[in-house]
Structures are given as C-alpha cells and as structure tokens.
C-alpha cells in the first residue's frame, strides 16, 4: 500500500496524523487524499479548494514527481509509492 507523508505544519491541525505511518489503498491522488480525510476529517478542506483542486500553495508529489493534474487529481498512486504533501515556502 502507498504511504503518505506531509509537512509537519498539518499536524498542528490534525494531530491524529502525527507519529504514525499513513498507509492507504492505491488509487488516484484524489482517492488517496480522501482516505487521509477519513482518518482526519476536514483534512481535504486544508489541501483542496471549493472545486476539489489543489490549493494554489499546496504541492503533492508521488515519490519525486510533482503531480501533473492539480485540478481533478487523477495521477495514479501505485502500491510502492510515497505521496508527499507540502507547502510553498515564502521569504521573511
């Protein structure tokens, strides 16, 4: 099963996701995120907008490849993959 890793920033809002391995069934990125949402209700509201597209400053990678379809999240996540969810950085 693929696993999901994410910026620690999100643990602030979803502590249930911290200090655990998040394993979900293979499928599209949309399905993977929905599985995470099942563990942590409200999670998709943080990474997806009203239309279910990735928010502008959120990035998702499958292994080392940034997902192509940010709008409908159709990129396929295979069994051996790791999905990374992270945020854009800004200066100060």
């Amino acid at each position, binding site marked *: 099963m693929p696993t999901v890793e994410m910026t620690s920033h999100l643990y602030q809002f979803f502590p249930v996701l911290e200090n655990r391995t998040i394993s979900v069934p293979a499928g599209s990125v949309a399905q993977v995120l929905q599985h995470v949402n099942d563990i942590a209700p409200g999670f998709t509201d943080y990474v997806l907008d009203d*239309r279910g597209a990735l928010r502008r400053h959120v990035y998702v990678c499958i292994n080392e490849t940034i997902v192509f379809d940010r709008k409908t999240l159709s990129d396929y996540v295979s069994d051996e993959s790791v999905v990374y969810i992270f945020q854009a950085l800004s200066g100060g």
Partner: protein
Amino acid sequence: MSNMILLGTRKGTVIVDRTNSTWQPRPIEHAGIPVCYAARDPRDGTLWASLDHGHWGPKLSRSRDGGSTWQDVLSLKYPEGARYIVKVLPTPDFDPLAPAGQPEYADATVYKIWTIAFGTADQPGKLYAGTIPGGLFVSDDGGETWQLNRPLWNHESRGGDLFAGDATSENRWFGTPASIDYGVFEPGIHSIVIDPRNPDHLYVAVSSAGVIESTDGGLTWTGRNRGMLNDYMPNPEAEWGHDPHFVAACAGQPDHLWQQNHCGVFFSDDGAQNWRKVSSPDSGVHFGFPIAVDAQDGRTAWVVPARADMARMAIGGGLCVARTTDGGQSWQSKRNGLPQAHAYDIVLRHALDVAGDLVCFASTSGNVYLSDDRGETWQCLGNNFPPVYSVRFG
C-alpha cells in the same frame, strides 16, 4: 458594559479581558495564523475568528467556552457552477479602441472570509459571512452549514445569473486585493448590516462596488449609492464602482448609516436612500478605513483619519480620532493620550469599535488604544501586538 476586546491579528486572536479597571491580554490563540476578523456573538457568547491561512484556505474557528478552546467549522464553499466575471486589467499593449471581447469567467473559490455578522435576537443560529470574491454566505444552524446567497451573487450589476449561462449584463463590480493569494484582485464583502427592527432588512457593502440593500431577507437586492462620489473615476457619480471601506449603522436609529472611503466620510439618515459627504480634506477628516457609530445616537460617529491615498499613515506623524456629534457637520479631533510624534500607524477597516463609552482602535503597527470616555482621553493597551486587522468588543 463590555469586559472583553477581541483582536484579529496577523499572528492570531488576542482576547483582552477587563478585570476591575485594568485590561489584560491573554496568550494568543490561533498562534501564527492570520486572523482577519474576530467577534463575539452577543446572542449566545460564542466567539468567532476568521482564519486567513496562507496555504490552507480560509477557515472559520469557533469557541463556545469563552476562548479556552477553539474548533474549526466546516469550510464555506461555493456551490458547483458558481462563476464570476474576471476583471481583466489593462496591460501596456491594451488597445482601448479595439472591440470588446467576450467576458472571461472564473470558477469561484473562497479567498477570504472577510467579516462575520450575527442575526437578530429572535433568529438564533442565523449567521452571515462576507467573502472575497464577493459572496454572501448564510447559516441558519449556528455555522454548521452555509449557503451562498444566490440573488446577490447573480445580481445584474455582476453580469446576471452565471449559473444559467453567459452574462446577461455588464459586470460593474471591481476588485480588492485578497491578501492570501498574491495577484488575486476580486470584489469583497466586508460589511453586513442587519436592521434590528426587521431581520429581513439587510445591507452589505462591497469593495469595489458599493452598498446594496435587501428588504426581503436576501431574495432581491438594490444598489444604494445615490450621493456617493468617486472623484477618481471618469464619472464620479456612477452608480457602481464605489469602494466603501466600512459601513456601519446605529443600532438605535438604524436609518442612520455611515461609511468612509477614498473620497471622504458619507452619512445617510434615510436608510441609505441618499448619502451625503460630510468631510473635506481641509478639515483633517477625509481619508480613512474604519468608522464606528454610537448605538443610540445616529449622528455620533468616530473615524481615525489618515493621509490619503498613496501614503496611508497617520497625518503629520500624530495619531488622532475624530468624532462628530452632529451628523458630520463638525468634527472634533481627539488626541489626549495618543502619540503626537513619529506615529505612522494605519488603522484598517475593522479595527475600530465602540461600546457605550468605550472606544478602542488598533493599528497595523501593533499599537492598541482604548478610551473609556468616548474618545476624550486614551490609554495604550500595548505597543507590541502583531499587525491588527480587527477590533471588536465582546
């Protein structure tokens, strides 16, 4: 008398409590998250904060225990098919003589929840939220679920019903920056006024469109901008395109409404049927963002004047609050206790409030000032707060 002040700041929500005669801030809540508006529902004491996450989208947060704990509320979402006409700004190669093209449409997504308003006492659970891009959301169940007010979204001044198809009228709403998303410049609802005599009587104010009124609970809406001036526009008296910075009404005299914009302070004593300008640049009261109205006397209001328009800072390096008690015919400058040198503060549209004799304002420089005598004298509650976006008595 109020014993609580809520500050929405760049770094979270700060609650300031009064104990006896002293005001003491609590440790910050929502630490690190911009809070563009925070207020207390006077009906049941629930505290609300509008979170302006930089990455994770706008959220509403709610506390039902006086601010000890906070919970996310389900995100407001535009329904499928909600679109708006994108205002395409001219580029250097723009040809003003070229035939107008077809409007560009964008699917709506919430960029900012700019303000929250509470229904009347006989409407428990009724809440309103104003957003960028220009959506009025309504909840009838205390914020558990929200619905977009479609008649306002589909208003003819915005192009008509874009759920149904292409625009049927011209879009006359302009934009305002949505700070979370650089480059986004869309209309925003920052003021929602509910008539305490009649909960079906509403006003909303839109940057940059103007004031719109409903007398049937939001089923129909009519622009109320007669008498407003846009002295930087080709037609200063155009019906639309106004940029009210904030609109407030007197609770005891709800037909007395006030607003301030780039062109002065405007007052209406006939329920926004007519506005009249009650300031002049020479008087020291002209440009500014917030305005507050006395709860009993609709002719008494407060503003925090600033240098217009490209400067947006205190006038002459000294902070002052101006108060009128005669409907804007005259203004008195109140400075006792406020810094009069090297002050460069700007006070944003939601960052001034009045409750009885209490007046409080705060600036993006992190300074918070309070008066307990209607502005005659001021005390500083702190100089090192984060930039303050909103001030509301609880």
